[in-house]
């Protein structure tokens, strides 16, 4: 029997998420709940798959199908720091392979492996959308861009010295990804001074619609996810 359990915050978010989908489409919860589970348990193993399936509930095989389809769910345990070096076109042109080989040599591991001390997991990632600042590396939820080999060395030293709490802060907002894109309205609409402008297709009337204001960033406080229950209550 599974001994896994969500934290109080995750449970609260799960209940709120349930209200976001029609009753007959609760299957759509698989993606966000898997993402929450990864944040809570570090990786998505068989036990987590069964746990997530029981939470929604859906047959476990459907969760497995989703979890194995997307590369951002870790199917293996990962180290304290998850280094994802982009090696798609732009980054490769700017020397991503050199960065990757450098990290491999420095940590003594190949792509897809974890260091013996459990500090680092290295993978070569596909485009992370940071082509303008290539080469880049995503470390847990943060982007490190315009990398030089010296930057990489400094970063690895810094990461090693960073205490656990900062590596995986407990109050980090749930949700995939990080950075400013999190608060963007959906549907790929552009954010223009608080108004989303739907880019119309040919022959369509342009539509504009109000976008919920992004919560102000309080000093010293992490940014609250705009889609958390608190955000909705406002």
């Amino acid at each position, binding site marked *: 029997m599974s001994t896994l359990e969500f934290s109080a915050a995750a449970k609260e978010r799960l209940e709120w998420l349930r209200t976001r989908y029609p009753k007959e489409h609760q299957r759509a919860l698989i993606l966000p709940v898997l993402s929450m589970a990864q944040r809570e348990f570090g990786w998505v193993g*068989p036990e987590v*798959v069964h746990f997530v399936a029981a939470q929604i509930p859906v*047959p*476990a*095989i*459907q969760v*497995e*199908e989703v979890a*194995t*389809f997307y590369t951002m769910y870790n199917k293996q345990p990962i180290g304290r720091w998850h280094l994802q070096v982009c090696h798609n076109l732009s980054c490769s042109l700017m020397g991503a392979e050199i960065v990757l080989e450098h990290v491999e040599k420095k940590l003594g591991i190949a792509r897809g492996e974890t260091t013996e001390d459990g500090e680092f997991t290295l993978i070569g990632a596909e485009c992370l959308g940071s082509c303008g600042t290539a080469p880049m590396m995503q470390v847990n939820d943060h982007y490190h861009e315009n990398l030089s080999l010296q930057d990489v060395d400094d970063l690895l030293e810094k990461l090693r010295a960073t205490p656990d709490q900062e590596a995986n802060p407990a109050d980090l907002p749930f949700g995939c990804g990080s950075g400013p894109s999190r608060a963007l309205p959906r549907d790929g609409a552009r954010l223009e001074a608080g108004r989303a402008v739907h880019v119309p297709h040919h022959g369509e009337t342009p539509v504009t619609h109000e976008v919920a204001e992004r919560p102000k960033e309080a000093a010293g406080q992490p940014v609250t996810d705009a889609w958390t229950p608190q955000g909705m209550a406002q």
Partner: protein
Amino acid sequence: MTTDSVTLTIDGNSVTVPKGTKVIDAAREAGKNIPHFCYHPGLPVDGNCRMCISDIRTWNPRAEKHMPARRPAVACWVDAEENMQVFTDTPEVKKARASVMEFLLINHPIDCPICDKAGECMLQDYYMLHDRAPSKLREEKVHKPRLVPFGKRIVYNGERCILCSRCTRFTTHVTKTHELGIVNRGDRAIVEVLEGGDFANAYTDNVADICPVGALTKTDFRFKKRVWFLKHTDSVCGGCSRNCNTVVDHDGSEVIRIMPRERAGVNDWWMCNEGRDLYKEHAALARPAATLRIDGLEGGTASSITTWVGEKLAEYKKSDAAAVLVSPWISNEEAWLLSFLLGKLKIGHLDVMTGRTEGALPADDLLHTDDPNPNRAGAIAAGIVPDKKAGKGIDEIKAAIEAGEIEFLLLWGPHFGNDLDPELLSKVATVVQITDEHDAVSDAAAAVLPLRTWAERDGTWTNFEGHTSRFRRSLRPPAGALDGFDLLMQLCAAAGVKSPAKSLRDARKKLKQDPDSDVRAIVDGKFTFPEQSALYRHTSGAREV
């Protein structure tokens, strides 16, 4: 024309179908088979294989013309519309299909010579029909797991798989057991049973039937026979009162496998694993020999023993000391003739036995019923019931045997062990056993006549919902085994009763004209159990008809 139906043309042929029908079904209605892999009439539409791609043109009422299709569409996904034009084999469509075939074959291992599906493989057939081009691929083909057991009965070969998702849709929507899923992505995708899970529901073999390629094979059939050496005979499964329509694949003397045959309202497209294994039971059957154990009359041929039994029956005309018990494995025609004969002889102690109980499976929502015998309904409908005035039912017959009142007992068919033990039978002076299975009673009965099994004779059975299905002889019967209907004709002759039918075919015709509505219902497929019948208990799991 009503608003509930639409009329469209398929390659110029007009066809009217109910609204909501998919184009591929409408084409089938018009006699046009659009090639397909992932589409299956018993499964929800998925539209992933793209093989049924066709030129589908909708009618534009404002422009008053058919709109040329921007691109070919998949016929399994598009709903038939009023005035739609469908072209299924234009040069463009053929070219698109050839491309689909080329795509599906990119990583296919083409190991047909060692593949059990070869000969009945849709990929093979469609390659010959639609592609016939050599592979352009110079790279190494993608390798995937090849010998993955899915439970005990199915083996999965990931390299042959074209990911049509028929098997996963079967476990999701038909059995609703959710064992199979497609995991990973792109050219790494494979079908998988969840880690720690098992693929062990009662209907697993169906996934191998519906697999359009050789990715899922049955352990029971793997490397046993090339399919083109198989002879196919339409038959019916006797494993339970569902009467799944089947095809017996055999080589004349031995059954190799049993496959389901489509029959709407009975088994649709499916069949259970137990039913498929019934042929093993059949092969292991101990067959009786024609025997007569009457002082001074020992030995004798099947024919002379039959005559003796017929004459003996006639001796008990209007007697209270004779009883007949019938197995629910009797065919409708045999039951009809037997009941006619006994009616003429005024032998009223007649009933259907409990029959087989060993193979009983819990009734479920798909096929299984809780009566593991095929023809209780048909036997009752054909008249195997106690005489209305003075006839005894099975419980009273047993009581009468116990009391020593029965002198002559005729047992028709196998599996009476659940009603009568040899000790009870020893109280009957003359036991005549007509059966396809040798058992303890065969060693003691006054007369034994060997009968042909369901696989060795023709006939019909009626299932618990009143649907009648016809089974045909697939195997050569062992020497001496008698056809049930012929045997009854001889019994009639020996007993001095004129048979109402000249042959089995004639009997089938007569059944249709029988004045008794129950008997006619066998042919009409409308027979339902009388609610209060004592025999109804055997079908307590009967569904609403």
